[in-house]
């Protein structure tokens, strides 16, 4: 089976982080989100992957993934151009999948247990598509599936007032090539996009059965800053302790800390896991790095108290203040204003930034 990895979108909900790059490259536990998807597909035996690119981040995504050989997969790029919807993105992959079944993975989604069960559950001679579902407490906010006892989907309802179940669609699908014919017949929705839920609904109306698989482990759509922090927390919770870098005498380390080979925790610094520290990071004397923090490459931490935070990388954090629940973009400088007059906070803040002072 081939895989189609959808990697378009503007990343508007992740601005300002995505002003300078695609959302699929935002790191979670110091690894770009899209790499988790590639690894999940590979683990499910899917090694021929079509990566669908929009306008944003084409070069950066290609630069990271290349031809896929470093992940043990073979990547073909599919340029969608205008963001005309998920069903349009899938439709652009028709030549690539070459009349065979295929799995679709949203490149900014993360799934703890991967897509193997969804793929195994799908039998193309029985089903037109397979969808992944997850129980949610607020089904009114999602596309919801009405399923029978065998897991066969009866209908899909988008953000229903009276949900037929608490099973929400998440961004993983398996399709037979029949989906391409129904996409050809789709009309754009009110927002001008070809909707993937409309394509699945059309399959149902055309007499195809739709399989479903209820995902039990966590699933995260990493579209917003708080989602990145949550995904970072979930990944770090499962991380193993690995101290490959330098830990000076007098540094205090507890719990699951991942320290890259060229990173240093200096004497007088305190690090309490789960924490991920990338290459060329220095944690200096007087700094505290607390649980659920990831610090990206080439970053200097000198003095702050940091918890539950993702620092993308190339940054200097030299304030002695407390930084919590934060997402700090590449090449940011967070310095101390102590001793500066007049007293006050000094900021250079980009468009769409959020500050809680």
């Amino acid at each position, binding site marked *: 089976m081939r895989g189609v990895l959808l990697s378009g979108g503007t990343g508007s909900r992740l601005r300002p982080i995505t002003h300078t790059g695609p959302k699929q490259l935002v790191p979670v536990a110091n690894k770009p989100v899209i790499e988790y998807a590639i690894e999940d597909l590979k683990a499910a035996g899917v090694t021929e992957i079509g990566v669908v690119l929009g306008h944003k981040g084409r070069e950066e995504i290609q630069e990271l993934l*290349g031809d896929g050989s470093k992940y043990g997969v073979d990547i073909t790029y599919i340029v969608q*151009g*205008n963001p*005309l919807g998920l069903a349009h993105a899938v439709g*652009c992959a028709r*030549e690539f999948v070459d009349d065979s079944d295929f799995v679709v993975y949203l490149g900014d989604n993360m799934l703890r247990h991967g897509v193997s069960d969804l793929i195994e559950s799908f039998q193309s001679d029985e089903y037109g598509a397979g969808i992944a579902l997850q129980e949610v407490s607020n089904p009114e906010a999602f596309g919801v599936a009405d399923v029978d006892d065998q897991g066969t989907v009866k209908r899909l309802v988008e953000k229903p007032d009276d949900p037929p179940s608490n099973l929400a669609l998440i961004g993983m699908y398996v399709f037979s090539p029949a989906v391409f014919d129904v996409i050809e017949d789709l009309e754009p929705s009110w927002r001008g996009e070809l909707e993937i839920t409309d394509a699945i609904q059309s399959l149902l109306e055309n007499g195809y059965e739709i399989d479903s698989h209820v995902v039990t482990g966590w699933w995260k759509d990493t579209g917003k800053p708080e989602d990145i922090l949550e995904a970072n927390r979930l990944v770090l919770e499962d991380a193993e302790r690995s101290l490959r870098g330098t830990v000076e005498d007098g540094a205090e380390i507890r719990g699951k800390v991942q320290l890259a080979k060229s990173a240093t925790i200096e004497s007088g610094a305190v690090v309490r896991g789960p924490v991920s520290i990338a290459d060329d990071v220095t944690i200096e004397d007087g700094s505290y790095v607390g649980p659920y923090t990831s610090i990206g490459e080439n970053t200097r931490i000198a003095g702050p108290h940091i918890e539950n935070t993702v620092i993308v990388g190339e940054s200097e954090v030299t304030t002695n203040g407390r930084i919590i629940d934060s997402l700090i973009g590449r090449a940011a400088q967070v310095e101390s204003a102590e001793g500066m007059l007049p007293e006050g906070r000094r900021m250079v803040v980009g468009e769409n930034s959020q500050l809680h002072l």
Partner: protein
Amino acid sequence: MRIITHSCPECGTVVAANELEDNRVMKCPREGCQEVLRFDDLTEEEQEFFLDNRDQYQI
């Protein structure tokens, strides 16, 4: 909606017709591929269909 695409003969990168029409003549978007792709690479029928229905390919 009919979705029209063209594959780069050199590297296999698939390009949607709206992208080809936007640029008319473009270097293949695959990093490192030097192939030149043209809207004219689509069949005459595909070009005509796309141009007749251009509005639906705009967002």
